[in-house]
């Protein structure tokens, strides 16, 4: 055989190999229901064994903001671990009483790691994530020629490389089955955003039921990657929407769909989920950063409080919750304005980037205020009933007023750099970048400031006083 022929044969072989590699690269597809992984559904479980009680019910909301948000929420977890309380005669930490964590983007790394590995987070999370320049690791994979072939596939993209990195280096290949079993608290809700309708998408089995898909077999790393798929930098995560053969629409949604005139909030909540039932028209969905629909992660908690099917609402109406505490860890920054100094309008790239991200913080304050109003509404209802009953007690023979199953003592607490009194410190934290690469000094400062902001919060102090903690 001539050298020329050998060379041609080599080219064909290498070309075929590359082509097959190109053809093989495909993101891991979520499995259909009935694939055999659904022994324990990933949902809120009542009740669970251990130190956690329903009567002191604590939910945490971790905002987006890259490593900044991950470090701030980690600092708050550490603080809660060190606060000792005695509840119903049992000594424990406040962290033992955390029942749910809802997270967005950077906050999802902390939430998912704690959900999977519990107290191991306090030994491992800093060296494995917070102190790592994750961005350079991701770029390293991006510039690896082996990955170029994979990236040439239409079914494999940058986000899949990121998810692989998170899976190998952080989440140890764990799937949601590891979160589901054994049933435990906190119930971690990782949130992303559906690109089609801009609706929040949560990685829970209840949501995956609408895709006729099984969550237990799905890697936690991919959910976190979807939650943190920042527009432009990372591509969306794709999920398959399977045919709905034996799906029964929950009654709460059936009612919501008829509520256009009575309760539009409930109507659109139900209606937005309906698109998934049309699996012929929507066989795939593409998920991006959770911050695009709610950058503080409070909406799932609000929904669980409002909805008849919500796990918080049910526990409240069943009289199980006595103290209800929400701690919002908000790593919001304030962007330095440079656009306003320019006489000429911004270029197309700036406009595109701004368009994708400018709305991320628009409704955070409104969401927090809505939750505070819901809290106040309950407190007022309880006070009105008590005041009226007190008057009725003076009328002999009067019938007692009906009461709630229990009187709830609710708190909404926010950790936010805005609360820092020193303008220089406030400016320092509010100027930290949204990236997956911060210096050790910046990470240190964030881990320290979380507990400080919590301690200085009047709502948190009031909550501690109610537990007789000075």
């Amino acid at each position, binding site marked *: 055989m001539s050298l020329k022929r050998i060379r041609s044969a080599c080219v064909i072989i290498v070309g075929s190999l590359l082509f097959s590699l190109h053809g093989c690269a495909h993101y891991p597809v979520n499995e259909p229901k009935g694939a055999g992984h659904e022994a324990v559904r990933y949902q809120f479980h009542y009740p669970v064994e251990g130190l956690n009680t329903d009567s002191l019910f604590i939910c945490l909301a971790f905002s987006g903001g890259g490593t900044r948000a991950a470090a701030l929420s980690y600092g708050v977890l550490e603080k809660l671990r060190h606060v000792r309380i005695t509840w119903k005669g049992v000594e424990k930490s406040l962290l033992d009483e955390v029942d749910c964590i809802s997270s967005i983007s950077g906050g999802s790394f902390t939430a998912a790691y704690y959900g999977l590995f519990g107290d191991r987070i306090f030994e491992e999370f800093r060296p494995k994530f917070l102190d790592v320049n994750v961005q350079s690791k991701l770029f390293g994979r991006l510039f690896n020629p082996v990955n170029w072939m994979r990236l040439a596939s239409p079914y494999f993209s940058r986000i899949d490389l990121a998810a692989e990195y998170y899976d190998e280096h952080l989440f140890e290949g764990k799937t949601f089955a590891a979160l589901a079993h054994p049933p435990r608290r906190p119930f971690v809700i990782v949130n992303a955003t559906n690109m089609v309708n801009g609706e929040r998408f949560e990685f829970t089995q209840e949501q995956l039921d609408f895709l006729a898909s099984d969550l237990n077999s799905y890697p936690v790393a991919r959910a976190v990657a979807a939650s943190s798929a920042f527009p432009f930098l990372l591509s969306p995560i794709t999920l398959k929407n399977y045919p709905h053969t034996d799906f029964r629409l929950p009654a*709460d949604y059936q009612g919501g769909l*008829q509520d256009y005139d009575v309760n539009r909030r409930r109507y659109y909540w139900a209606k937005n989920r309906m698109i998934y039932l049309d699996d012929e028209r929507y066989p795939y969905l593409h998920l991006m950063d959770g911050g695009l629909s709610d950058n503080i992660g409070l909406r799932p908690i609000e929904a669980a409080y409002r909805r*008849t*099917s919500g796990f918080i609402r*049910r526990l409240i109406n069943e*009289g199980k919750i006595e103290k209800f505490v929400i701690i919002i860890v908000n790593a919001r920054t304030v962007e330095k304005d440079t656009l306003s100094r320019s006489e000429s309008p911004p270029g197309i790239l700036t406009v595109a980037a701004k368009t994708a991200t400018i709305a991320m913080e628009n409704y955070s304050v409104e969401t927090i205020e809505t939750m505070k109003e819901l809290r106040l*509404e309950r407190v007022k209802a309880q006070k*009105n009933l008590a005041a*009226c009953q007190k008057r009725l007690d003076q009328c002999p023979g009067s019938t007692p007023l009906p009461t*709630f199953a229990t009187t709830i003592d609710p708190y909404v607490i926010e950790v936010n750099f805005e609360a820092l009194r020193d303008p220089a410190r406030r400016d320092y934290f509010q100027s930290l970048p949204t990236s997956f690469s911060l210096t050790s000094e910046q990470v240190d400062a964030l881990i320290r400031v979380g507990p400080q902001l919590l301690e200085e919060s009047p709502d948190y102090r009031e909550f501690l006083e109610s537990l007789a903690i000075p």
Partner: protein
Amino acid sequence: MEYLLVRFPRSRRVRIDDEFNGRTNELIELEAGRHTVSLGPPYTYEPDEYTIILKNTSALDPREVTFELKENT
């Protein structure tokens, strides 16, 4: 939020939209809108269920529905 009071001669769990959400003769706090209301077992009550539209209530003036014990139970 809206308020519902389910009257029944006995203390029984209340099922709202297929989920247990409180007990009879206690105030139940719910989102405004259309809900189905029934009771937990034993099924010795009537009617089987109510479909209500909950709106414009208050804790002092809740929407009331009444279930009766079935005769011969």
